[in-house]
C-alpha cells in the first residue's frame, strides 16, 4: 500500500512537471509565432491557401417627405450590410451578406445571401445556398447603396415588388467569348415564390411573396429560372439580358395548389466613356412582367362565401441615365454625377392591391472616393397605393408623394 502511494505521488509529480514543461514550451513557441506573424515585413509574404475578407456597405441620411397636407422629415439610420468572403481554394468560395436595419422600433439582422460556389471549369460555376436571383440586373448587381446611383429603388423592386429577390437552391452560371461577343448565363432551381391567398392579408390576395425560400417550400414544386446576357461589343459597353422564371406558387393541398406564376425580365446596361464630352454616360433599364394563373379569392369580410378573381398580370419598368464628367480637367466636376430615373409599376386591375404608380427621380452625387458617395436627390411618386376601398367601388388613389433626401453611402 505504501509503495502504491509512493508510485502514485511520483507519477503525479512527473505528469505535473511534464505538463508545466510542455506548457512553457507552447507559450514560448506561440509567443514567437505571434511575433513572427505581427512583423509587418512578413504580412502577405506567405499567404495561406485559404483567405478571408470582410467587406460591405452602409448608408444613412436625411429625408423630407410630403404627401398631400402631411409632411415628415427625419434622419434615417439606413442599413448596414457586412459581407463575409472566404476563398477556401482556387475552386471553392463562400460568401454571405448580413443586412441590419431598424424595423418597428427593433434592430433586425437578416441574411441577404449565404452561398458556396465551386468553379467547375473556366466556363462553369455551380453554387448552392441562398443567393440573389439573376432576374434582370438590378437586384443582383445594382441595388447596394454604394452602387445604386439613387438612394431609393425603382418601382417594382423590394417590398411589395413584382421582381424576385433571393431564394434558396442551386445555380449554374458562367461566361465565355465567342468571337467578339461575350455571353453569360445563369440557370437555377430554387424553392420559389409563394402566393398570398388573402387568408392573412385580404388586401394582398393574389400577390406573390418572394424571398421566403429560407423558410422552406410551400409545395413540392420548385421554381426554375435563369438569365442570358449578351455583350455584343469587345469593350463590354453594352449588355442585353433576358430572364425568366416559372413555378407553381400555391400551398399544397389547397385549391391554389396548381396556380402557376411565369415571370420575365428584359434588361439593358450601356456604359461608355465619351471623350467628346469628357464624361462617362451610364444608361440602365429593366422591364419586369409577372403573370399568375387565374384563381378565386375570398371577398374580405364576406359571410356568404363569395369569391372574386382578376387577370393577375403585373408589370414594372425603369430607365435610368447618369452622366459624370470624370475626364474633366476640373477636380470638382470630376467628382460630380447627374442622374435621372423614371419608373412605372402596374398591378392587376380588379385586385385589392391595384395601383399604377409612376415615379420620377433626379439626383446629384458627389463622389468622395470610388466607393463613397454623398447623394442629393428629389423624387416624386404619383398614383401609389391604389386599390379598391371596398369590393366593387372605385379605386382609391393616393396623393402625390414627394421626397427630398441627402444620403451618404460607403462601401468598405
Amino acid at each position, binding site marked *: 500500500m505504501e509503495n502504491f502511494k509512493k508510485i502514485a505521488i511520483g507519477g503525479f509529480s512527473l505528469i505535473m512537471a511534464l505538463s508545466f514543461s510542455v506548457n512553457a514550451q507552447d507559450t514560448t513557441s506561440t509567443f514567437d509565432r505571434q511575433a513572427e506573424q505581427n512583423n509587418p515585413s512578413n504580412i502577405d509574404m506567405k*499567404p495561406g491557401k485559404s*483567405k478571408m475578407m470582410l*467587406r460591405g456597405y452602409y448608408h444613412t441620411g436625411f429625408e423630407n417627405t410630403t404627401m398631400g397636407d402631411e409632411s415628415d422629415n427625419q434622419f434615417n439610420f439606413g442599413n448596414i450590410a457586412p459581407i463575409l468572403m472566404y476563398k477556401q481554394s482556387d475552386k471553392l468560395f463562400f460568401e454571405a451578406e448580413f443586412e441590419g436595419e431598424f424595423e418597428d422600433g427593433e434592430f433586425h439582422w437578416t441574411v441577404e445571401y449565404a452561398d458556396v460556389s465551386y468553379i467547375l471549369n473556366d466556363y462553369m460555376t455551380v453554387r448552392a445556398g441562398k443567393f440573389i436571383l439573376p432576374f434582370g440586373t438590378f437586384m443582383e448587381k445594382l441595388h447596394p447603396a454604394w452602387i445604386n446611383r439613387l438612394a431609393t429603388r425603382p418601382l417594382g423592386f423590394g417590398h411589395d415588388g413584382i421582381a424576385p429577390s433571393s431564394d434558396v437552391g442551386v445555380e449554374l*452560371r458562367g461566361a465565355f467569348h465567342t468571337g*467578339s461577343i461575350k455571353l453569360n448565363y445563369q440557370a437555377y432551381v430554387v424553392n420559389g415564390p409563394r402566393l398570398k391567398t388573402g387568408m392573412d392579408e385580404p388586401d394582398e390576395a393574389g400577390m406573390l411573396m418572394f424571398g421566403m425560400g429560407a423558410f422552406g417550400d410551400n409545395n413540392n414544386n420548385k421554381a426554375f429560372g435563369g438569365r442570358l446576357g449578351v455583350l455584343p461589343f*469587345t469593350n463590354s459597353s453594352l*449588355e442585353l439580358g433576358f430572364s425568366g422564371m416559372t413555378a407553381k406558387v400555391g400551398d399544397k393541398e389547397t385549391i391554389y395548389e396548381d396556380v402557376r406564376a411565369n415571370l420575365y425580365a428584359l434588361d439593358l446596361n450601356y456604359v461608355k466613356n465619351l471623350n467628346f464630352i469628357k464624361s462617362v454616360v451610364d444608361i440602365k433599364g429593366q422591364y419586369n412582367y409577372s403573370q399568375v394563373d387565374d384563381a378565386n379569392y375570398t371577398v374580405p369580410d364576406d359571410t356568404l362565401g363569395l369569391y372574386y378573381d382578376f387577370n393577375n398580370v403585373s408589370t414594372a419598368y425603369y430607365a435610368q441615365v447618369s452622366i459624370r464628367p470624370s475626364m474633366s480637367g476640373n477636380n470638382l466636376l470630376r467628382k460630380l454625377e447627374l442622374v435621372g430615373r423614371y419608373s412605372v409599376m402596374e398591378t392587376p386591375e380588379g385586385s385589392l392591391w391595384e395601383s399604377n404608380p409612376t415615379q420620377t427621380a433626379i439626383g446629384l452625387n458627389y*463622389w468622395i472616393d470610388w466607393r463613397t458617395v454623398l447623394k442629393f436627390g428629389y423624387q416624386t411618386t404619383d398614383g401609389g397605393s391604389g386599390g379598391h376601398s371596398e369590393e366593387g367601388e372605385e379605386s382609391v388613389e393616393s396623393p402625390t408623394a414627394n421626397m427630398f433626401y441627402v444620403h451618404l453611402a460607403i462601401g468598405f
Partner: protein
Amino acid sequence: MKKIIIILSIVTVVIMGATSFNSCKPSEAVMARSGAQIWGETCIRCHNPADPASFSDTEWDVAAMHMQIRANLTADEIKKVTEFLQSAN
C-alpha cells in the same frame, strides 16, 4: 410556360449559331485586351473602377474571385484584372 420555352429555344439557337460560326474562340481583339483595359471597361458597368491601392494582394485575390462569380467574368478576364490590380496597388 410555352412562351418561356419558345424564347429560351430561340435564344439557345442564336447562341449555338453564334458559337459555331465563331468556333467558340475569343477574337484577337478580345485576347489583346489588357488587365487595365478590362478593369476600366468592365468594373464601371456596375460601379466605379476600384482603386488598386484599396486592397493588398491577398485581399484582391479574394475580391477577384467574388467578382468573377458575381459579375460573370471569364477566367481570362479575371486573371488579367487581378494581375493588374496586384501590380498597381
